[in-house]
């Protein structure tokens, strides 16, 4: 990678699996990958054994910021390993299932609730037919995520609540069958040469039918004569010819239908929000081959429930599970499954039983009729996968927990690269400070050191009465802060100020009326008084500026009716701008604590936008920007490597700058320091325990190693080894092949012997490991 420094991320998941409240489920056609999308916006990929269907969680795709509403395949080809996901915020991503990379992403103003991948005639590969919170049907390319064309309505246009694309037998054109929320059935005929620029494509036919807010419309694939329409209260079968109703069936008491599909011309499968599957045989008047087809429905011949797919819940569910009926093809045999993913991260699979007409007849003749009961063929979950791991997934403080004899959830963490220390807050209110390199070494490297039982030496700060929610080391953000100060916020409504080196509690700020959720620092060009403050956000929707030197609250911005989602600054105007989840923006004067303005709608958006512009023009004063870790994490969410790199570089740049104008007493401050290790805490849900990602910057590591190697040699021995010769230097320079001029400079410095460095702890560790 020319011009890029190579950063290797390593994830330490910890003992507790992440929460995974499944909103969407998908199984690839080759039965090798299962994807589950969750309400927090992550997608979990599970490795599926194609024969036994055993599932192992393989990776977590991070990128969406809202619940995943639908997942679809991206290609007709079996070995094409891509899927497309779409979220409630309108974000769409195309993911590579092999390496988990996001190949393409786009954010649309239209939010899809459903996507059908369909291979049109005259087209090379599938296209996505999408419907959602808008009145058109949008047809997209799954790889470029471009809108190819749209289908519009002339007759009572309204949101499309369900659609089905199919090709009628013996025809070359494709038909889109759709149902609006207000119950208009519409049909479009496509010829394959539609484009974005063509005249609007209107429906060919439309007819008003009864079902409102349908969740599913499916044409029977066997005969294309009957259509299944599902609304939450009932399902109905229609004659596709004239859209007249053939039969209707209510949902079981207390349950709502989620969707359904045809199993055969005379059988359907339905599933409800209780997480159960129901298999029905259709009455004679709904089966096209029957002589009684299209006759009025009669009491004695109604849909017959012949099989029930259910599973006793071992855990309380907080929302209806996501379900999907899939047909896969393996070794020329068709397999049919009903999949279910629930709020507790459980995945269930039912094998759809093959019940012959004779067996069905037998069931029907029992008095009273007893439908076949089937429990899930397979169940698995993230927590089961975690429990079955031997040894269990590594957490960053495992060694310590082993000694304490129990594991306490880690809830917040912050890495101090200059001190090479890791500060971790836990659920019991303690804050643990350990040497980062030592802990990392304990978790990642095998060797004698693991048998020492008094390792790692650590410091404990106790003062919070419950979970530590957030940590901040203000000096890392800017050198204007005291380097002894560490700030923490907890579930006990308190913000604590600690002396990092002495390990003492300096002050406890009790100004919020809710748990503290976030801590940040105001920009550097604020007034001198505000510069000494940190900003804290609490769950009672209040924001405060707490002065670390005065030990009091300088500004209390409360009375926000909705949770705080953004904080922006206008330091020159002395404004702190707070955006809430309902879109309202509050403008506060920092020095006086007065509420200057409350804005809504477009005005609110413009004020927030103006702040961003302001930031962009101030880009030269790096410190005025938000915490690089935030950008870093944002980069991580979007899997945007350049953003990650930029943020890390910016963070490191800041550190270097700090070093530049810090006093010369501190040996750590004297030299520019490209940290070879960065530790970033990650959690996707506030309830989760924190996992950690270790980023090893290989380039910085090599420089450190070279640095140390040559620093130990005297100029005489350097010369003896021929290292001072220009050719040798070039050789090393070529070896490191770094595009960053910094690295070259540093290597040059090493050879000139100007820069003597004390051994970095990390290098020391890695050397031990080499031995």
């Amino acid at each position, binding site marked *: 990678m020319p011009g890029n420094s190579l950063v290797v991320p390593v994830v330490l998941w910890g003992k507790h699996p992440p929460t995974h409240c499944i909103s969407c489920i998908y199984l690839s056609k080759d039965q090798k990958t299962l994807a589950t999308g969750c309400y927090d916006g992550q997608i979990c990929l599970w490795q599926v054994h194609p024969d036994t269907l055993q599932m192992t969680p393989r990776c977590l795709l991070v990128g969406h910021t809202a619940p995943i509403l639908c997942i679809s395949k991206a290609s007709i080809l079996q070995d094409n390993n891509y899927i497309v996901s779409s979220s409630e915020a309108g974000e769409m991503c195309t993911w590579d299932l092999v390496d988990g990379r996001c190949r393409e992403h786009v954010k649309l103003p239209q939010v899809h609730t459903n996507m059908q991948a369909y291979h049109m005639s005259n087209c090379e590969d599938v296209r996505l037919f999408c419907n959602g*919170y808008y009145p058109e049907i949008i047809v997209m390319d799954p790889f470029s995520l471009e809108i190819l064309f749209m289908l519009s309505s002339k007759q009572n246009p309204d*949101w499309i609540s369900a659609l089905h694309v199919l090709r009628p037998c013996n025809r070359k054109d494709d038909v889109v069958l759709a149902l609006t929320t207000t119950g208009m059935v519409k049909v479009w005929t496509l010829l394959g040469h539609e484009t974005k620029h063509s005249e609007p494509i209107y429906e060919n036919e439309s007819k008003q039918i009864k079902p409102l*807010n349908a969740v599913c419309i499916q044409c029977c694939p066997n005969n294309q004569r009957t259509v299944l329409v599902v609304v939450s209260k009932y399902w109905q079968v229609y004659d596709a010819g004239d859209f007249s109703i053939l039969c209707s069936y209510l949902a079981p008491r207390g349950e709502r239908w989620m969707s359904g599909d045809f199993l055969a011309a005379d059988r359907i499968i339905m599933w409800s929000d209780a997480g159960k599957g129901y298999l029905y045989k259709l009455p004679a008047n709904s089966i096209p081959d029957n002589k009684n087809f299209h006759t009025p429905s009669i009491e004695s011949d109604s849909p017959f429930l012949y099989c029930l797919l259910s599973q006793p819940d071992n855990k*309380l569910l*907080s929302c209806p599970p996501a379900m999907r009926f899939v047909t896969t093809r393996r070794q020329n045999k068709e397999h049919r499954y009903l999949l279910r993913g629930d709020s507790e991260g459980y995945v269930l699979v039912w094998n759809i039983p093959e019940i012959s007409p004779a067996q069905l007849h037998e069931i029907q003749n029992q008095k009273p009729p007893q439908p076949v009961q089937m429990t899930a063929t397979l169940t698995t979950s993230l927590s089961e996968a975690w429990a079955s791991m031997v040894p269990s997934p590594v957490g960053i403080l495992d060694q310590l927990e082993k000694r304490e004899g129990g594991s306490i959830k880690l809830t917040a963490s912050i890495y101090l690269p200059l001190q090479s220390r890791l500060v971790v807050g836990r659920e019991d209110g303690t804050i643990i400070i350990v040497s980062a390199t030592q802990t990392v070494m304990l978790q990642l490297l095998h060797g004698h050191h693991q048998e020492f039982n008094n390792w790692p030496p650590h410091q404990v700060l106790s003062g919070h009465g419950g979970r530590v929610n957030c940590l901040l080391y203000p000096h890392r953000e800017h050198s204007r802060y005291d380097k002894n100060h560490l700030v923490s916020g907890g579930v006990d409504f308190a913000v604590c100020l600690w002396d990092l080196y002495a390990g003492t509690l300096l002050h406890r700020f009790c100004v919020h009326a809710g*748990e503290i959720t976030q801590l940040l620092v105001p920009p550097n060009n604020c007034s001198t008084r505000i510069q000494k403050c940190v900003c804290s956000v609490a*769950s009672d929707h209040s924001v405060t500026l707490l002065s670390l030197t005065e030990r009091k609250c300088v500004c209390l911005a409360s009375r926000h*009716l909705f949770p705080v989602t953004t904080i922006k600054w206008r330091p020159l105007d002395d404004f702190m701008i707070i955006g809430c989840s*309902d879109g309202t923006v509050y403008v506060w004067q920092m020095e006086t604590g007065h509420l200057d303005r409350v804005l809504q709608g477009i005005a609110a958006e413009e004020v927030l936008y103006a702040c961003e512009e302001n930031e962009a023009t101030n880009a030269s004063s790096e410190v005025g920007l938000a915490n690089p870790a935030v950008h870093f994490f944002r980069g991580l969410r979007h899997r945007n490597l350049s953003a990650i790199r930029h943020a890390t570089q910016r963070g490191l740049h800041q550190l270097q700058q700090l070093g530049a104008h810090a006093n010369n007493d501190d040996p750590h401050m004297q030299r520019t320091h490209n940290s070879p290790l960065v530790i970033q805490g990650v959690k996707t849900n506030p309830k989760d325990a924190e996992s950690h990602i270790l980023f090893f910057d290989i380039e910085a590591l090599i420089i450190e190693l070279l640095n140390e190697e040559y620093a130990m040699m005297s100029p005489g021995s350097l010369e003896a080894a021929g290292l001072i010769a220009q050719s040798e230097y070039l050789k090393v320079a070529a070896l490191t092949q770094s595009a960053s001029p910094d690295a070259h400079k540093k290597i040059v410095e090493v050879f000139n012997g100007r820069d003597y460095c004390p051994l970095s702890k990390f290098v020391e560790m890695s050397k031990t490991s080499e031995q």
Partner: protein
Amino acid sequence: MVDCEKEEALNLQKEFEWVLHQEVHKGLEQIHQILAECAGRFPVRLYGHDNSSKQDKFVLSVPSDQVKCVVTLTGDSITHADITFKVTRQTNTTIVRTSIQNDCPWKLQQVQDAANHLQQAINHIDDVGKNYKFKSSDEVLHVLGNILGSLQRGRTSLIVPRKRPIDDLIRSLNMKSLNPNLSEDLAISFYIQSHKLIFAIYQLTNNHGTMKYDSTHAESSVPWLNEVLVFFTVGLQLCQQLKDKICVFSQYKDFTVGSRPSSPHQV
């Protein structure tokens, strides 16, 4: 001391169950009333109300006859409009006239979107049966999250009109409602911003190869929009308050119904 704490925990648990079984339903009922009231103000078929034939007339103008537009709003569409405005090209000013006729109305998609989101919010409440017993705070938070999301989207669609590129505007289906058509350098748009109906004229000018546009706006207040927005806001606030109430409990431990041992204090 320990007994004291135990009793407090027990009382907290009781209070939690009371909130879950009584307060949540009461809160949802209240939100439902507000939203049903809101649905009644919409000039579309929504939740048992059908006001789609409701007609309003508005005059949108900019003084000295710069813009004058008389609009008939039926349901969510402009079914009739007489539009007159002045356009200055280089130095000569011309008057442009066009109209919208009944057979090809201009649809205000924002109204339909807001109504549909509102309908979804109401459906989320209806899905919870009156006698349903909530078992955990997560369950309630999930329902409230759904309602909040729908209301938020509905309200936003009215107060923050979507920005569209000028090309899309010119090519939009609504532009085809105009009779006679406008010249190629002109585009108009009707949209809603908060409680106002806005009429915008965009004039494209080619300035040495770079396209830019000037815009003129005329507006008129729409009484029912104001009421609808108030109900949306109140609904949102009530929902958030209920959510905050539940959050207070989930702050402590993962409370679930039944985690309390049967106690002698129970009434």
